[in-house]
């Protein structure tokens, strides 16, 4: 099947699945992912691996738009009031998950290198699924705010921790092989860490500045959409070109935009009304890429990884939220919102395969199987938390609804 037909199928089955899951009170994102699994290369094969490779550009754009939206929560006023508390909660849940996963993996006989890599990957949470469920529930309130803040920060933490672990592994390998050219190895190990953090933020700031300046001169919604899409595409493309983090750069564009442009609310609203096709493509493709057959091979390691990660996220979030004096609803339900894990974890597995081929089999088997579970269970847990918190609201009826 050619790419255009695959794209058509993706959109139509996503729409169908979105309707179907509403009957069983599941988030739409679960329907998109499930139907992606069904039409994907591992089950029915309507969408082949080649189609997925060709259409991956849509995933990149969708992820860029999603992260751009997540970036909107980094409003400087909000950061000043709750930022530090959210940062402490994120540090607690991320590091507790990483410590529990790393320790369990070492106890189960994995090498310290593989255990540390798995620990760093365990920090990540799926921003796309989370944002999608929040939008679907039209939720707002302390839990939603905290959740958005935590997922924004913990992905940055994950990238930082991963780069740090990679640097330690490289240095250790250098020392065990005679220790020659220590400084050069140190430089090669540290550079990606600093570059990905600082460079991505710098790129995001520049693109965000362009967007904010131009947005003041654009009034029509259609033009606004062209502007946003153009800026996000530019940001993702340049980030890929410079080997920066597309995730962090897109987040920085959103953060810059929200702080520099008075038009930002109108702009984010315009985006929210027109990006669902990208979301649908993103999640159906993510589902197509999932190989549920891997669940059979995950074994004890995979199960322990999932349990240790979820335990770390729950316990860390609960105790840190309590210590920081966040609302009781946040203390009680924040952990549920942090189960989902997807794109970043998979991206890091690809990096490990390229950089540490000897560690790749152990890490990829565990992470790919765990992602398959988290992608399906995570959104359900987020929806559960939001609905129970009472922050979910009916969508206001729009003119198009009335006409229909």
């Amino acid at each position: 099947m050619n790419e255009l037909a695959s794209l058509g199928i993706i959109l139509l089955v996503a729409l169908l699945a979105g309707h179907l899951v509403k009957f069983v009170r599941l988030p739409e994102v679960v329907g998109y992912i499930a139907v992606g699994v069904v039409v994907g290369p591992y089950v029915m094969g309507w969408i082949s691996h080649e189609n997925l490779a060709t259409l991956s550009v849509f995933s990149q754009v969708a992820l860029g738009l999603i992260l751009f939206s997540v970036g909107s929560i980094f409003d400087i006023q909000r950061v000043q009031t709750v930022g530090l508390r959210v940062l402490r909660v994120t540090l607690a849940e991320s590091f507790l998950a990483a410590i529990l996963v790393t320790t369990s993996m070492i106890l189960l006989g994995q090498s310290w290198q593989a255990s540390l890599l798995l620990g760093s990957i365990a920090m990540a949470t799926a921003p796309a699924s989370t944002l999608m469920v929040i939008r679907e529930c039209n939720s707002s309130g302390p839990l939603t705010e905290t959740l958005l803040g935590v997922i924004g920060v913990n992905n940055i933490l994950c990238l930082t921790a991963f780069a740090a672990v990679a640097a330690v592994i490289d240095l250790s390998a250098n020392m065990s092989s005679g220790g020659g050219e220590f400084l050069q190895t140190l430089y090669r190990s540290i550079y990606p860490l600093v570059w990905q953090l600082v460079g991505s933020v710098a790129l995001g700031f520049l693109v965000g500045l362009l967007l904010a300046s131009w947005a003041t001169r654009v009034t029509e919604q259609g033009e606004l959409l062209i502007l946003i899409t153009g800026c996000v595409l530019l940001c993702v493309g340049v980030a890929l070109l410079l080997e920066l983090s597309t995730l962090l750069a897109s987040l920085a564009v959103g953060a810059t935009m929200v702080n520099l442009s008075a038009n930002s609310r109108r702009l984010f609203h315009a985006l929210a009304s027109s990006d669902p096709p990208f979301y649908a493509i993103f999640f159906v493709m993510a589902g197509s890429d999932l190989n549920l057959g891997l669940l059979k091979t995950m074994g004890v390691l995979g199960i322990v990884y999932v349990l240790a990660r979820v335990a770390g996220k729950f316990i860390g979030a609960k105790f840190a939220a309590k210590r920081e004096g966040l609302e009781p609803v946040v203390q009680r339900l924040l952990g549920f919102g942090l189960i989902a894990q997807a794109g970043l974890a998979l991206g890091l597995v690809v990096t490990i395969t390229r950089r540490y081929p000897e560690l790749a089999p152990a890490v990829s088997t565990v992470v790919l199987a765990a992602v398959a579970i988290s992608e399906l269970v995570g959104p359900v847990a987020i929806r559960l938390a939001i609905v129970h918190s009472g922050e979910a609201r009916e969508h206001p009826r729009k003119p198009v609804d009335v006409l229909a």
Partner: protein
Amino acid sequence: MPSRLTQREYIAILALTSTAILGLGVWLKPKQLPEPTISGEETLRLQTLTQRRNLENLAVYFSEVAGGIQPGLAWLNELGSTGLIWNQAGLIVTAGPNHPPPGEVSALTTSGNISLEPQVLSESFRIAALKPINGPRLQPVRKGTTAGLTPGIWIIQVARQAGGQYLFTPGVYAGTSPTTCGSVEYQALQSNLPLTESALGGGLFDVDGNLLAVVVRCDDRFAAILPPDVDKEIARATTFEGQLVRAYGLQVAPLNAVSRKYAQATEGVMVIGVADGHAADLDGLNPGDVITALDKVPVRIQDDLRPLTASKDRAALQLVIQRNRRTVRIDVPASAPFTSGEPHGGMALTDASQGYLVEAVVRGSRAARAGIQAGDRLLQIDGKQPQNVTAVRKALSDDNHDPIFVVLHRGSRKMGTFLNDEDIPKIR
């Protein structure tokens, strides 16, 4: 512009810093590690090691192919050659021995020892087929075809040895070409593989383990003949004509006007071939003899000679023949050919050095039309040994239009034929 953008300088500094960070980051990016330089000597050593590894892998591959083939091969103890398990019934095909095999043959297979009895020995003695008497079920070789093969591809020769182990040699396929073994024309597989005594009865296989050719003795050389020709040879040998050759070592032809006149006989069948060391040879039959009676029963057609092959326990018989216009009686002992025990080994009844060697035959000449080939030895002309080369040349010359009966020795047979008589079967 909203209030936050009033601090233009502040934002400009941030923008400049970001641009500087990106520029600096690109500039500071670690260079790709240079490939370690390798000396020419080291490169050569690595190439040699790689080639050696490739050759070792090739040897392992062929060893595995040969290992897959060897259950279809047997070692025939009494014949000292390899046998190929030909079909599901367990029939074993091997290169024909110089002499008829003894009563039973024991074979060593991967499934165990089995006993076999000679079933068919082709008339030209290129091929013998042995039928299992007892023993386990055997796995036949898979038969392939040379149809899709292109010259230059790999093939493998596999044969068993006395201890049960097998030998294999990889080689290169060159094509097929017609070849004449004794009196029969076959399609032979050509390759760079050395066909030797140790490969006799073994096979040439493609790399998928399919049999392409069987190694047989072909006069004083070896040839690899294709399975369809082997099947034809077996089929031919199952006729009475073939049985007569197998059981008694005799080949006959009905009389016609020329042979009647030559032998001064009105009825009977003419001997046109006698296998060296076989019963007919030992009993004293020669090409050119006309058998007129068997045990006082007149012989008119070939089928009248069935008593010679009928039973293992037949009584003594007597043949009446016309030889050089005289009547001669020949006693055939009361013994079955295959139960006589000894295969007459070592009895060189015909000295191959005797006779005149035919070095070449002109295409289309009457010698060629009669089936005489280069390599044949001319023993007799019209019942007499030729005195000199001139007499031979004169007798065989195309200028001579008289029917002449010549006796030749080819391979392990004496054969007789008329020159200038198109009715007499061409010698084969």
